């Protein structure tokens, strides 16, 4: 269920690497835990971000939660469609619900993140 071509961060975000660019979103587990998402405070293009830092905040009917970027770089694109339809994150967290694209400082750092099977184990542990 968690796609194999993605890398995962312990704060429940994912990154899809394509060359120097990384697309970021939140995981299915995260959207499920948050419940109905009603708003996302999207980051701004051209912002430089550090790995493990907050780039955005999501409001659901239950909670507000920070979106943590797994990798460092500069935000080059954000998913503006989410401004009007944040619920897309619930519906399609790994597809249309992507949040931002980052021009990565060092794509090789992705190696330190979890792959899908590691992430699945990690959330099983968290659930305990």
């Amino acid at each position, binding site marked *: 269920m968690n796609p194999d071509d993605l890398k995962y961060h312990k704060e429940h975000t994912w990154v899809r690497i394509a060359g120097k660019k990384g697309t970021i979103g939140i995981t299915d587990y995260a959207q499920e*835990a*948050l419940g109905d998402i*009603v*708003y996302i*405070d999207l980051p701004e293009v051209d912002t430089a971000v550090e790995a493990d830092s907050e780039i955005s*905040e999501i*409001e*659901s*009917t*239950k*909670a*507000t*939660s920070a979106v943590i970027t797994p990798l460092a770089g500069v935000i080059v694109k954000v998913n503006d469609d989410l401004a009007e339809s944040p619920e897309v994150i619930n519906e399609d967290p790994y597809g249309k619900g992507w949040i931002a694209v980052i021009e990565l400082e060092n794509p090789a750092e992705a190696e330190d993140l979890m792959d899908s099977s590691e992430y699945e184990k990690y959330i099983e542990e*968290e659930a305990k």
Partner: protein
Amino acid sequence: MDLAILGAGPGGYVAAIKAAQLGARVTLIEDQEVGGTCLNWGCIPTKTLLASTDLLAKAREMESFGLELQGSVTPDMTRIMERKNKVVSTQVKGIRSLLKAGGVILKDGRGVLTSPRDISVAGKDGSSYTVTADKVIIATGSRPAQIAAFPFDNRNIISSTGALELSAIPKSLLIVGAGAIGCEFACIYRELGSEVTLVEMAGRAVATEDQEISALLARELKKKKIRLLTDVRVEKVDVREDGVHAFLSDGQELAAEKVLVSIGRAFNSEDIGAEALGLARGGRGEIIVNERLETNVPGVYAVGDVTGGLLLAHVASRQGLVAAQNCMGAAIAMDYRVVPAAIFTHPEIASVGLRQHQAEERGLKTRIGRFQFRGLGKAHAMGEIAGFLKIIAEEQTDEILGAHIMGPHASDLIHEMAVAMQHGLTARDIAATIHVHPALAEGLLEAAEDVHGEAVHVLPASDR
């Protein structure tokens, strides 16, 4: 005892009634209208407009409440303003009859102190006479401050007073100053359909509030598509045929139909005879008073905005009560430790006591409890889940040092915290008190529990 009071705003008229109750013969002199800024051009008219726009906002959400509207809901400025005028005039009548019933002599005219005991009055009816008293309270209030480079023209460059009298909804509104007044008008006119830009020279909107409040307000403004620019100044405004063009310190140029300047208040201490009396004034023109609200001229007191402290109606009124009693022989000191205050944005903001950064600056050790309105069933039922409540308690004693709320009915909720602070109650005292379910005040119960990490309706830390 003869007491003369200059100005019938919430400071002056409350002082007048109190002093009369205590047996003074009171003459109250008012140049414009009883109720002052608060009732005529401030608190009450803004909140009346807000009542219309809040209802409009709700009407727009009708469908989500399962209500079907046949037709549409559109704002009619003429009738919105008529309603506002009616609310104001009803209250004006109310104060006039209170004054009358209290035995206060009301003089409609402009007063100037010619000695510490004498006020020369130019009556509205053309008369002129002198009112002589044993003691005097100055309660002349304040007015909108303007920017020298682009003063009010009351057409394109307007004050808060002008913004309460527009006959049409401006297509676009540029608001200079994102304090309480600027942010309230931003919400009102945005809801009516104006494109609104707030320009603030400080680093954040409502800069005197807790930083978390400013951060959430920035978010809520963004949701409403109100543009907020911070750390930038409007340096110049050109009035052109198609509206105004504003030039900002960062080089940006913004066009708008109107500019509302809400950068603060100027104090009405100039034309009241202050110089002749030798009244001590501060650098901003505010009249300096001691803790008993007496000026440097014995027997002359001052209350309210003109003293330049907290520019709030309820502070002015409390000062009026204290000054009236002191004029009648008491020696009561004003106590500003617990002053709740509200900003009527949507959602509302309210605060009392220390902000977190103030507590830190004072080197206080604190525990902080927070709760989100979205954790309350009542907030969901009402369809108003945005916002949070925050309680700051002293680490050792657990005494509540401050509370900050942004969310539905914040201006009412804050009083539980104010009473708690007034009486030195602790976060545990609040947590031990049964609160009604379902009610928004449960948020304070939860926040108080969270001070000790014991809230029941909070997700574990990693999910917050």
